[in-house]
Every structure is written in C-alpha cells, then in structure tokens.
C-alpha cells in the first residue's frame, strides 16, 4: 500500500517571549492513518495544533499539507483545503441550535455571495441543501433528538459530538481533534473510538490529542509523545508502551 504523507511538520518551533512552547518538533501523518499526540500537561500539544491550524504563527519550521506549504497561510483557508478541527474548550456557537451550529460548518459548501444573499437569490435552494447535509451529519453522530435544542445547553459529551459533526461538514481529508474524549465516561469514549475508526475507514485521516490512554492505545496506528515542547518518542502503541523514556515522563499515569 502506498503511504502518502498528507501532513508534514518539520522542525517546528514556537516561542512565547523566551519560552519555547514547541521546540523543534518534526513528524508526519500518512493518508488514512490515525495518529495521536500524547504527553503530560503543558507539553505543548495544543500549541502544536494551533500552529498547524494557523491560530498561532510559527517561530521557525515548516508545515506542509497535501504537498502545499501552509506555514504562513491564513487560518480560514485551511477548511477548503480539507483540514478541519475541534477545540479543547468546545467552541460551539452560542444562540444557535444544534442544527444551526452544524449548518454553520457548511459555510464553504455554500456558494452565495454577500450581495447575492441580500437580494435572496437562490437562498432557499442552498439553505435546503445545507440543511439536509447538516441533518445527515447529525444523524451520523446520533444526535437527532437534539437537533433544535440550544447547542450550548447540551450535556458535555454531546456538545463534543456536535462539534465533530460540524467539523465534518467541510468534508475534510484530515480531522484534528483536541482531546475529544475529555469529560466522557468510558462507554462514551469507547463509542467515540469506534466512531473515529469508522471515519478513518471511510477515508478521513485523523490526528488527535488525548489523555485517555485506553482510547489512544485502542485506535491509534502511531503515537507521537511530547514533553516540555519537544518530541520525546514516536512509534506504534506497542513501541510507545514499552519505551522507558515515555514511562519515565508519565510517572504515575496509567500506561498498561
């Protein structure tokens, strides 16, 4: 099977003042892989995500996505390129229902310009199309009953899934998830893991940050371990589990 690197991070560094939150990190993820990034709190995982998704500017290094250099690209352009993400702090849109939140994810699937939409031309057809797309995504994550509820009022685990459904609206080639299992009980985490496996089998590459070791070990093809902003280790779940440096960094954490 031909392994094509869909995302490549080379010597990536990010400094805040004098402090390096991410220091010379390099790795790549192949198309169709599930890669997880783990590490103690403060290891720089979210910062790494924010660099890849262009929320932060890099201090040095290079990011390549589908062969294109995205190191300095404006963040809003990533969605149409096929990169989508969710957030650790769940950034759902207040005042919007679940359906509306997910429909908002379909922005790049729409074509109507600002002036056109003022005059209402073709609005209805596009809205119908977007709504149907959103409804199918919501059904995919099993949240039909919450379709017209205020998204921010949903239980925590459900909010997560709404955010994922919303991120999937852009039909991404790669989905980045920041601690998707946080706040979920073990059954919900299991369902999430199965969901992500299904996604991958349908062709979506998955990169995620996680602390829930069970999920990480269960579904990851490869794992990257970070500590103090640097890449500590990289390998398959078995390799990582037995890596003495990793065990030392995680002293006390559950790595069975």
């Amino acid at each position, binding site marked *: 099977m031909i392994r094509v690197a869909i995302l490549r991070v080379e010597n990536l560094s990010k400094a805040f003042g004098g402090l390096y939150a991410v220091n010379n990190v390099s790795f790549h993820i192949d198309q169709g892989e599930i890669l997880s990034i783990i590490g103690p709190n403060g290891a720089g995982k979210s910062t790494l995500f924010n660099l890849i*998704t262009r*929320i932060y500017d890099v201090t040095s290094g290079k990011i390549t996505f589908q062969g294109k250099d995205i190191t300095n690209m*404006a*963040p*809003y*352009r*990533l*969605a*149409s390129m096929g990169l*989508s*993400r969710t*957030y650790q702090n769940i*950034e*759902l*849109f*207040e*005042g*919007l229902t679940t359906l*509306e939140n997910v*429909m*908002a*994810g*379909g*922005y*790049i699937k*729409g074509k*109507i*310009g*600002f002036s056109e*939409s*003022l*005059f*209402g031309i073709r*609005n209805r057809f*596009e*809205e119908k199309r*977007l709504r149907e797309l959103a409804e199918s995504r919501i059904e995919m994550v099993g949240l039909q009953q919450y379709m017209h509820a205020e998204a921010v009022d949903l239980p925590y685990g459900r909010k997560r899934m709404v955010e994922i459904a*919303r*991120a999937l*609206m*852009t039909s991404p080639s790669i989905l980045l998830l920041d601690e998707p299992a946080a706040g979920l009980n073990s059954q919900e985490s299991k369902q999430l893991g199965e969901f992500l496996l299904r996604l991958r089998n349908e062709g979506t590459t998955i990169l995620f940050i996680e602390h829930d070791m069970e999920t990480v070990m269960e579904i990851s093809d490869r794992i990257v371990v970070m500590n103090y902003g640097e890449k500590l280790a990289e390998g398959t779940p078995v390799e990582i589990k037995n890596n003495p440096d990793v065990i030392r960094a995680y002293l006390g954490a559950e790595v069975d």
Partner: protein
Amino acid sequence: MDKINKKLLLGVSVVVALLPLFVHSSYYYQILINIGSLTLVALGLGLLLGFAGQISFAQASFMGIGAYTTAIATVTWHWPPVVALVASAVLTGVIAFLIGLPVLRFKEHVLALVTMGFSYMVFVVLMQQSEITGGPGGFPGIPAFSIGGLSLKGDVANYYLVWAFAIISILLVFNLLASRNGRALETLRSSEIAAKSLGVNTFLLKLKVFVFAAVIAGIGGSLYAFQTSYIAPSSFEVHYAITLLTVVVVGGLRSVWGSLVGAIVITFFEEGLTNLLPLIVPGSAGEYRLIIYGILLVLVLLFMPKGLAPFLSQWSRRITQQVGRRRLNTADKG
C-alpha cells in the same frame, strides 16, 4: 425568511401604506419620518453590533457623509437628485471600506474609541471646510427629491420615500440572515476562531457588514437632506451616534425588528421630553433631557439588556398561548 417575520413585514408594510389616510398634521408626519429614518440608519448598526459584534460610533458620521454629499451634489454641482442619492451611497461605501480596512482589526474598546475618533474627524472636516460644507452654520437650500420630472416634495412624499427604503432594507437584512453569510455573521459574536476554522474569512465578512451598514446610513443621510433641505454638522456627531446605539440596544440587539422598535420608543421618548415635560414641570425645557436620557440608558441596560423586541415577542407568544389554552377549555366544556 421564516413565516412569522414574513407576515410581520407584510403587516408593517400595510400599516405604513395606509397610515397617511389617518395622519393629517405636518407635525405627526415629521415624527413618522423620523422613526423611518432612524429605523433605516439603526438597522445597519444592529446588524453590525448585534450579529457581527462590532461596536461602531461611526454610523452617525456615515449618515452625515451621505447628507453632505447629497447637499453638495444637488446644490453646488446641480446633479439630479437620483444621481446624488446614488453618489451618496457610493461615496459612503468607499469611505467605509477604506476606514474599515485598518480599523476592524481592533477589538472592542479600541474599536469603540477609534470609531468615535473617526466620528470626530468627520465632524472637524465638516466644520472646517466651510467653503464646501457651509461650516458650523450649516448647508441650506437642498432641493426635494425628484425622479425625472416627478418631484417628491412635501410630507406624504417624503414619508413614503423614507419608509420604502426602510422596509426594503429590512427585507434585505432578513434575506441575508437566512443565508450562509448570515449564519457566518452570527458565529462572529460567539467564536471567531471556530468560524475561521470552518472557512469563514471573518475579517472580510466584518468589512462587508461595515460597508453595508455605512451605505444604508449614507442613504438615510441623503434622504434626510432631501427632506429637511437644511443640514448642519451638529446633527451627525457623537451624540447622534450614541442615540443610534441606544435605539439598537433598547430595541433589541439580536432582533432585526429591534431597530424599528427602538426607533419608535426613542422617537416617542424624545417627543415626550420636548413636549410633555414642560407641561408637567413648568418652565423646564432641554435641561432635563440629558438626565432622563442617561437614566433611561442605564436602567434599560441594567435590567433589560436584551432590549424590548425579544421581550415583546415573548409577551405576544404568551398571549397567543393563553388564547389557545382558553379555546381548549371551552371546547372541553362544550
């Protein structure tokens, strides 16, 4: 646009169309024209503020730019009114674009300050360039609006003119909100970062709304000039910008009808202050205006921050529910 709002818009249009049958005094026409004008200019601000979350004190200045462009175009250059109206809209849009480019990158307090600053800058120009603008004394002699040979002079004509634009603008805004762009707008207020990761060019969107709001304000200013035939810089400075913000906040930020509701409340409030207060407290005139205005602002913001429109819709929903319930009861007994 959903059914309820469609019906409401139709209802409002009918009321607006038929009102002249019952209104005969110039004084009341002036009030109605003021409400229409305020609705038009505040509408853009409501979109900018309530949906895009951008605090702007610049709306009054855009209205002023529109008014003065019309004045200069019709009086100094003898352009036909229709061309002057279009020119006002275009010039206001261009200036808004140029100002928005650097300014919309700023957040909250700084944006408020910079738009206030812009407002003063326009005021200074209007006052200083007296050769062109007439300076502090104002600009008199603006002709009435006319299309071709048909002159729209007088209360009824101006009334219909203003309200036609107001109602059309409300329709445009409803259309916008029912599209992917409207949805993107709503996301700007709660999470700009998430909007960006979903592909929304948030800066460009803010800019477009800013320009749109400015253009309607410019048109509002132009119509104001045609209607009053005399304009002065003092009508378009920071105090009017604060009035517009009050209209939007009192009416309801996240409601398109907010600008209409707010316009009605504030206009009646102003009329009440000017005309009723001297009856209750003899001898008083403008002195109490500031205090009462300030108290109104503080009270509404502290106790009804969502404004009146959502409150009204909740209230009317409760009434229709009650009516429905009563029908059920009588059905049972029957």
